[in-house]
């Protein structure tokens, strides 16, 4: 017999099959993921997702007998007190021991097929087909970690970096060029001497030969001693160079109107958009800063909690938020070190006199600095019917429209309901849309 150790064989033989399976149910998984984003409580978007696949889609049907109907016989073990002729009541809704499964009309009495996506699988599917535009600007962070990288060989170094192959190659070349006797040569001479010495009654010629050989041997030994097997000049070490690791950083500005005209519902819509954007950026960049700026008639940088939770009253001056953003960029986020993304959410209300200031700041000051500026206008569901056509759009929308027509990195969309968020997001960042 044979014992074969297969433990070191590659694992994951089923990987292909699992991928096939995921491919098959990809649409369902996607739906589940999108649904979960929409329906989940805010703040836990970034967790594992359990996906339920309706069995119908992935069933493997066979011809088999139904669980009910017809006349059947069963043999069971463990009879206690029955005698032939006894009758037993039938349990409700099925036969003995059988879980009644075929309850519902479409035969889906069984549970859905559940399985858990890993966080990565989840996010991959979420961001499937999406790609951030202008993902080009990267900057070497001053404090970045550097990484040693192989860079040729050097004649000096620490013993643990010794490169044996190179060292031996040099040593061999030197030994050959300096005619260092090899061990074989030495052995040959020594053997000859031993041979002659062992011989009784040597002839004169042989005696002479022996003398010569002894001299040769002494010479060889001297030579061998003088020419080292490995000399310090042979040593070669691997050389490493510290190369800085490129480290892309991004800052995301969330701008939101929190004035009285924004209802809770509209804020909620905006919030979802921001969450999604943040999730996306943190996947693409190693480091993402988020700056929350909310504004009424004046703008203020706040923390996340305040940004989303507390309410404010007042008028609406959109340009104040833009100016605040510009100020913060100048102060903290130099464009050569940061990729700047901005997302603005508003209901579109603005003081009419502010229009021009708004477009000017946006067009001349912010857009040149930003990788991407997304504006979403949230519309209350009740008003959605009224405002769907663009002719009815808000003042701010019309102002921004003039900017959007000129700038490639500015995108605007209107959002009416929760279910619009993901498609809008999808559209904004769709691979095929615009490549700046």
């Amino acid at each position, binding site marked *: *017999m*044979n*014992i*074969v*150790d*297969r*433990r070191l*064989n590659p*694992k*994951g*033989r*089923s990987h*292909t*099959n*699992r*991928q*096939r*399976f*995921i*491919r*098959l149910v990809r649409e369902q998984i996607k739906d589940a993921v999108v649904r979960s984003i929409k329906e989940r409580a805010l703040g836990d978007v970034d967790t594992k997702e359990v996906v339920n696949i309706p069995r119908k889609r*992935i*069933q*493997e*049907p*066979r*011809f*088999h*007998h*139904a669980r*009910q*109907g*017809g*006349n*059947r*016989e*069963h*043999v*069971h*073990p*463990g*009879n*206690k007190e*029955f*005698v*032939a*002729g*006894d*009758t*037993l*009541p*039938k349990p409700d809704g099925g*036969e*003995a*021991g059988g879980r009644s499964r*075929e309850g519902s009309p*479409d035969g889906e009495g069984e549970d859905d*097929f559940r*399985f*858990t996506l890993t966080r990565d699988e989840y996010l991959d599917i979420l961001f499937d087909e999406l790609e951030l535009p202008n993902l080009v600007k990267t900057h070497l962070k001053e404090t970045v970690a550097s990484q040693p990288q192989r860079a040729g060989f050097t004649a000096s170094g620490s013993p643990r970096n010794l490169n044996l192959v190179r060292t031996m190659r040099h040593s061999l070349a030197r030994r050959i060029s300096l005619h260092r006797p090899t061990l074989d040569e030495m052995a040959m001479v020594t053997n000859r001497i031993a041979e002659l010495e062992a011989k009784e009654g040597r002839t004169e010629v042989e005696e002479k030969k022996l003398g010569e050989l002894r001299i040769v041997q002494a010479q060889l030994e001297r030579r061998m001693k003088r020419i080292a097997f490995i000399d310090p000049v042979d040593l070669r070490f691997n050389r490493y160079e510290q190369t800085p690791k490129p480290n892309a950083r991004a800052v995301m500005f969330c701008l939101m109107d929190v004035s009285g005209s924004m209802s809770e519902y509209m804020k909620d819509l905006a919030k979802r958009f921001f969450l999604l954007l943040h999730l996306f950026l943190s996947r693409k960049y190693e480091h993402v800063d988020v700056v929350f700026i909310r504004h009424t008639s004046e703008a203020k940088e706040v923390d996340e909690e305040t940004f989303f939770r507390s309410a404010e009253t007042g008028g609406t001056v959109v340009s104040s938020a833009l100016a605040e953003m510009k100020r913060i960029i100048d102060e903290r986020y130099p464009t050569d070190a940061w990729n700047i993304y901005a997302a603005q959410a508003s209901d579109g209300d603005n003081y009419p006199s502010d229009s021009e200031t708004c477009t000017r700041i946006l067009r001349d000051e912010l857009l040149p600095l930003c990788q991407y500026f997304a504006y979403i206008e949230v519309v209350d569901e009740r008003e959605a019917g009224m405002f769907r056509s663009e002719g009815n759009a808000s003042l701010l929308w019309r102002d921004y429209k003039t900017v959007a027509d000129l700038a490639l990195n500015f995108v605007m969309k209107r959002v009416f309901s929760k279910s619009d968020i993901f498609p809008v997001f999808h559209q904004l960042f769709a691979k095929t849309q615009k490549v700046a």
Partner: protein
Amino acid sequence: MMAGRSANTSVQPGSALLFQTGEWNFDTLKRTFDAIEDIALNELKLDPYPVQVEMISSEQMLDAYSSIGMPVFYHHWSFGKRFTRDEALYRKGYQGLAYEIVINSNPCICYVMEENTMTMQTLVMAHAAFGHNHFFRNNYLFKEWTDAEGILDYLNFAKSYVARCEEQHGISSVERVLDAAHALMDHAVNRYGRRPRLSLATEKKRAEERLEHQRQTYNDLWRTLPPKPKREEVKPEVDMARKKLGLPEENLLYFIEKFSPSLKDWERELVRIVRNIAQYFYPQKQTKMMNEGCATYVHYRIMNRLYDLGKISEGSMLEFLSSHANVVFQPDFDDRRYSGLNPYALGFEMMRDIERVVTDPTDEDREYLPEIAGNGDVMETLKTVWANFRDDSFIAQYLSPTMMRKMRLFKLTDESEAPHYLVDAIHDERGYARVRRALARQYDPGERDPNIQVSDVDLKGSRRLVLTHQLHNDIPLSEDDARAVLGYVADLWGYDVQLLGIGTNDVTKYQYDASPRT
């Protein structure tokens, strides 16, 4: 106690023990295998294939599960689904892994898991590498229907063929065929060998003989009988065509492979691959209980013998017994854990019972099992049984009254019209035969799988394929699944397909139709 007892770190010199610690290594494995082999071949006189033991990790065991335990298999999403489910169950601790997987091949490949203790490895080797292995090699069903020499090569071929098709025609097109073929796997087996087709010469000779026979037995008297009223006319050409198609045909996949008007060559080959694999596994379905019974009996004998010879310690023996007791545990019908008869339990008990009947029969045994009672040669008797029976015939032949009383078997009838179950027969003089017959039927795959046949093809017109389900005891098919499978049949056939459920007195109980999805 003796001082040396507790220090079981290594085998004491002079001790006969094969191993003392739970840890295994390749040396102990080899040594133990040799000891087992010695008992199996020389004492039990088993006749197994050569063995190849393969050590795998638990992850690989999970992998192996998903491809029906075979070392190579083509890719398909359904295996991924199974893997995803098994993995989740295993990770959450709902389900343990099998200790071993054994493959009916030559050499017989036996996977064992690295997590097993040495005692478990011993048990597993005795069970799989000798028990199952002997059964595979000697049982008539395996001999007749499976090719242990060629299966691994065939699976390799299948895998690369499927992969090549996927490359050429796309994964979806291949999946379309495989999904459909998998749905028919239960109806893709030949239950009986085919009659070899006659050569032209033999046919001619038979025709001549028939003529000669008619000539010799000619009696003018028959001519005077009034002619039979003509039955409805059967068009001879249709009749001929049906005969050529071999209708009715119970191997649905075979029929589709041979006669489907729409399959392309490569699709036909895929169907053939699935059919061949189904045929390879069919004997395992028919002999599950016997096969496990045989393997369990063999490991039980071998482990006890090893212990008697002083080759395994008392600790190991206890570990083995506890594991063995779990394997052959049979809960009663009213136990919460009950989920039908445990094939290990029934199989093992029956083998032990045969051992008892052979060596120490009662008068009752002499009456019920006269051909083996008291013949004295346990292993020869069992080997004959293992070679020549399958589950249903084995039960019909060898389930003794003692066994029925021991397991307290009773038979319940469940008629859909009746308001109650009826205890029809129990383990007493009047019930033995009926209980035994009912249990045998329960193990007959012909009873378990619905009887579905290709009954007709409309050759002249729509090419519609007609399948007939002959209802047995009025038990219907599960409708949703039947409709789904029928859809697959239509896909493979390429034209409309109809399924008729025929009850007693040729009453059509139901009729499902399906058209190919385009």
